[in-house]
């Protein structure tokens, strides 16, 4: 039997797959795969498959990525560097393989995010699992099916996948599989396109599933790390020896890193408290949230300035466009920092054995964290293994490896495995935040109610969905880098939420200036039929026109739409504004969402529902407040996230487009929530809230 078969010709990639063009190569492995599944058939996909972000590393291609294994006992294993944090990737990938192999999804084992075993699929971010990893898995699985069919023809028997994995005629079967097999057309789907809940639901409801914070190893100790009392504070003096006096704990110090380990979390905490009592800190001035937006503006990048140059895109002439417009408006919008606050705070268990470091941790970036460990401990990549058990939420908040590094440092000193689990307070203060942003927008509308000039400047919030989907002959879009007072990073939908909030509220202002209905104004200025379709679907379900006719004091309706990461969303909200607090309460909400062909309608619906309700937090209650380098609301008691009672009446309309490739769906729905509510609050009161969370005078 050959060890390896080379592909005769690469696939011609379809246009939309240019970034992820899969070509194939087949290997039969009887060695390296033993640890996972034993001997059998290993199908690898070559190339820049399944990187998290378009345009990121991975264009080089050429590496072999093991994607699918069929064991000699018939076990089917899918391998992916993606992680499961509640977005449904594990089930979706099992479904994708099952579809192409014509087997039950329950038969498919999905090995995720173990850097010793799986290909590097980059970050689990940017809604890339669906458009990148699913095609790779489907291609590998379709190849397995075609190999099986060829074997059946060659052997003239009803061979099974078990037979295929054991077959000595595999080479012959392969020769009839030119250039990779075709995947199943949407119209013939038996598994994909049908609702399916999490395949490992039983492990979850019984408490059997081990999240990263649940991993327990023989002889394991519990760690804790000394944190500065405020941002920017530096450690002037400390007595780590205090730990041992206070508890059965051992201190670790290296430079600014101070921590301790003990047989229980309790003793570790006591030890750390004793150390903290001896610590002297030098504090540093830190901008407060009250002065946040002035700070961003002061530190913003200027063309030719010392800081990073702004990113600018423009066409036509803003000056001429504004001059030629009948209505001209400008406004400033603000979006605060918010925290992800996943249910499971950062956690890692680190174990050094035989010169190798293994870390179980909750991260959306397994290979990135491996590389961070390699760097932190001066190791080679082969000496580090990162394993990401399905984790308790991410929302873009777990791209970094600080907890893994801290646990590994403690474990190295202790000579035993160490579990480090951040407290909720640490997670609030020291995890990175969704960036705050300041927006300056100026636009002009002509006599026909068409946007003629569009000038949009974004300070700090980020560039996702920064480009306006609305037609305008004259347009300028600027992103200005600023000095952020807080550590910032990704978030569900990240900058798209902020950009879309500012834009979609301002579009409402323009519609009002042009005396146009907000829906009609949008339709008149949009060319993209997918955006128009979701607007029409949402407004129809909401009875937009009929509701506009009836007026109730302090009750209003609002609409918003948006596109990002290849999917489209529109939302209509009806709110009643509370007289005392000025907070809008959602009385009704309709969202229409379209992300191409729907892979799993049950999971998609949950992602959209989750986005709506999580989005209510940013829209109505969430904003990080800080002063003197400390958080003023860094706890669930003070930082109000949506709870059961906050769930409003709502409807979700899933627009299926079987003619379009599936796009990711975990993020984009969130971007329409806040602007629809802010626009409804304006309709209710005539007061415009230009900040999140939305507040108006009733």
């Amino acid at each position, binding site marked *: 039997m050959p060890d390896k078969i080379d592909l005769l010709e690469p696939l011609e990639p379809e246009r939309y797959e240019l970034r992820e063009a899969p070509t194939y190569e087949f290997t039969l492995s009887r060695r390296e795969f033993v640890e996972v599944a034993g001997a059998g058939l290993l199908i690898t996909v070559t190339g820049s498959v399944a990187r998290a972000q378009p345009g990121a590393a991975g264009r080089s291609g050429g590496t072999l990525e093991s994607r699918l294994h069929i064991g000699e006992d018939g076990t089917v294993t899918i391998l992916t560097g993606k992680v*499961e944090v*509640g*977005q*449904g990737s594990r089930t979706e990938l099992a479904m994708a393989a099952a579809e192409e192999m014509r087997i039950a999804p329950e038969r498919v084992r999905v090995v995720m995010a173990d850097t010793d075993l799986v290909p590097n699929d980059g970050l689990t971010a940017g809604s890339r699992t669906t458009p990148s990893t699913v095609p790779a898995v489907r291609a590998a699985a379709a190849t397995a099916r075609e190999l099986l069919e060829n074997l059946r023809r060659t052997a003239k028997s009803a061979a099974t996948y078990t037979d295929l994995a054991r077959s000595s005629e595999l080479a012959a079967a392969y020769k009839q599989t030119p250039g990779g097999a075709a995947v199943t057309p949407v119209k013939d789907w038996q598994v994909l396109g049908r609702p399916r*809940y*999490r395949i490992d*639901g*039983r492990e*979850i*409801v*019984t*408490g*059997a*599933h*081990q*999240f990263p*914070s*649940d991993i*327990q190893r023989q002889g394991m100790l*519990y760690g804790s790390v000394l944190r500065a009392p405020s941002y920017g504070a530096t450690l002037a003096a400390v007595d780590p020896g205090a730990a*041992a*006096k206070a*508890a*059965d*704990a051992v201190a670790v110090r290296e430079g600014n890193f101070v921590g301790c380990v003990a047989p*229980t*979390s*309790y*003793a570790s905490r006591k030890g750390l408290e004793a150390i903290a009592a001896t610590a002297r800190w030098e504090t540093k001035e830190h901008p407060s949230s009250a002065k946040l937006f002035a700070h961003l503006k002061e530190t913003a990048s200027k063309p030719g300035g010392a800081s990073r140059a702004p990113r600018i895109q423009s066409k036509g002439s803003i000056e001429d466009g504004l001059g030629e417009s009948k209505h001209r408006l400008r406004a400033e919008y603000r979006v605060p920092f918010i925290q*992800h*606050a*996943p*249910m*499971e*705070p950062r956690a890692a268990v680190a174990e050094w054995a035989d010169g190798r470091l293994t870390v179980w941790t909750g991260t959306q970036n397994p290979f990135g964290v491996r590389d961070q460990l390699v760097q932190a401990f001066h190791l080679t990549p082969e000496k580090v293994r990162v394993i990401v058990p*399905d*984790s*308790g*939420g991410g*929302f873009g908040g777990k791209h970094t490896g600080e907890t893994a590094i801290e646990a590994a440092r403690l474990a190295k000193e202790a000579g035993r495995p160490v579990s480090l*689990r951040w*407290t*909720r*307070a640490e997670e609030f203060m020291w995890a990175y935040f969704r960036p705050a942003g300041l927006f300056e927008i100026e636009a002009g509308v002509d006599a026909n109610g068409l946007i003629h000039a569009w000038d949009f400047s974004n300070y700090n919030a980020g560039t996702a969905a920064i480009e306006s989907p609305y037609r305008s002959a004259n347009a300028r879009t600027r992103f200005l880098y600023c000095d952020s007072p807080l550590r910032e990073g990704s978030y569900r939908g990240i900058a798209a939420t902020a950009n879309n909030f500012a834009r979609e509220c301002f579009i409402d202002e323009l519609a009002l200036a042009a005396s146009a209905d907000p829906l009609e104004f949008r339709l008149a200025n949009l060319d993209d039929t997918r955006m128009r379709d979701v607007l029409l679907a949402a407004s129809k379900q909401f009875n937009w026109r009929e509701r506009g006719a009836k007026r109730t004091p302090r009750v209003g309706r609002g609409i918003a739409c948006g596109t990002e990461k290849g999917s489209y969303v529109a939302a209509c909200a009806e709110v009643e504004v509370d007289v005392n607090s000025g907070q809008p309460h959602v009385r009704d909400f309709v969202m229409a969402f379209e992300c191409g062909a729907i892979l799993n309608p*049950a999971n998609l619906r*949950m992602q959209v*529902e*989750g*986005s709506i*309700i*999580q989005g209510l937090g940013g829209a109505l209650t969430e904003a990080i407040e800080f002063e003197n380098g400390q958080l003023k609301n860094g*706890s*669930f*008691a003070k930082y109000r*996230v*949506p*709870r*059961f*009672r906050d*769930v409003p009446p709502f409807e979700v309309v899933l627009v299926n487009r079987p003619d379009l490739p599936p796009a990711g769906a975990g993020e984009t729905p969130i971007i329409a929530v806040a602007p629809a509510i802010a626009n409804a609050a304006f309709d209710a009161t005539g007061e415009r809230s230009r900040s999140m969370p939305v507040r108006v005078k009733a």
Partner: protein
Amino acid sequence: MSAALKTTFRFAVNGRARIIKTEGDRPLLEVLREDLGLTGTKYGCGEGQCRACTVLLDGKAVTSCLTPVSAAAGKKVVTIEGLATDGKLHPVQEAFAAEGAIQCGYCVPGMILTTAALLEKNARPTDRQIVDALNGNLCRCSGYPRILVAVRRAVEMRGAADAGQD
């Protein structure tokens, strides 16, 4: 090292008698997880605000992060691992799995135990009563709508089981 005061506590966990010698002010959550290996009970906030750590203490849903182990002495503790009997899932567990009321799943044990306690007191809760009972349990995936569907199903399943016994 200081001699932290350790006391012996006896209580039943998931029907099994346990004797633990430890500091009395240790959170029950940590004793369950670290001494007894019952990691199904989750830490979420340590201040009783998220109820991921919910366990049943003599049938009542409590936040084990705020319950010192001393308060469990002489009592019966049920964790998510002890809810199924003889390999058969509790109706609330079955309903959560069947209705797919799981995104990341980290809040699910607490949700299930809070629901189980509710249904012991009130076999046929209204939606309003369900929402009120679960309002203290956070789900950051915000899967509340599916959880409500699951709880309704658990109510029906229990009703059907009771009817079957008549």
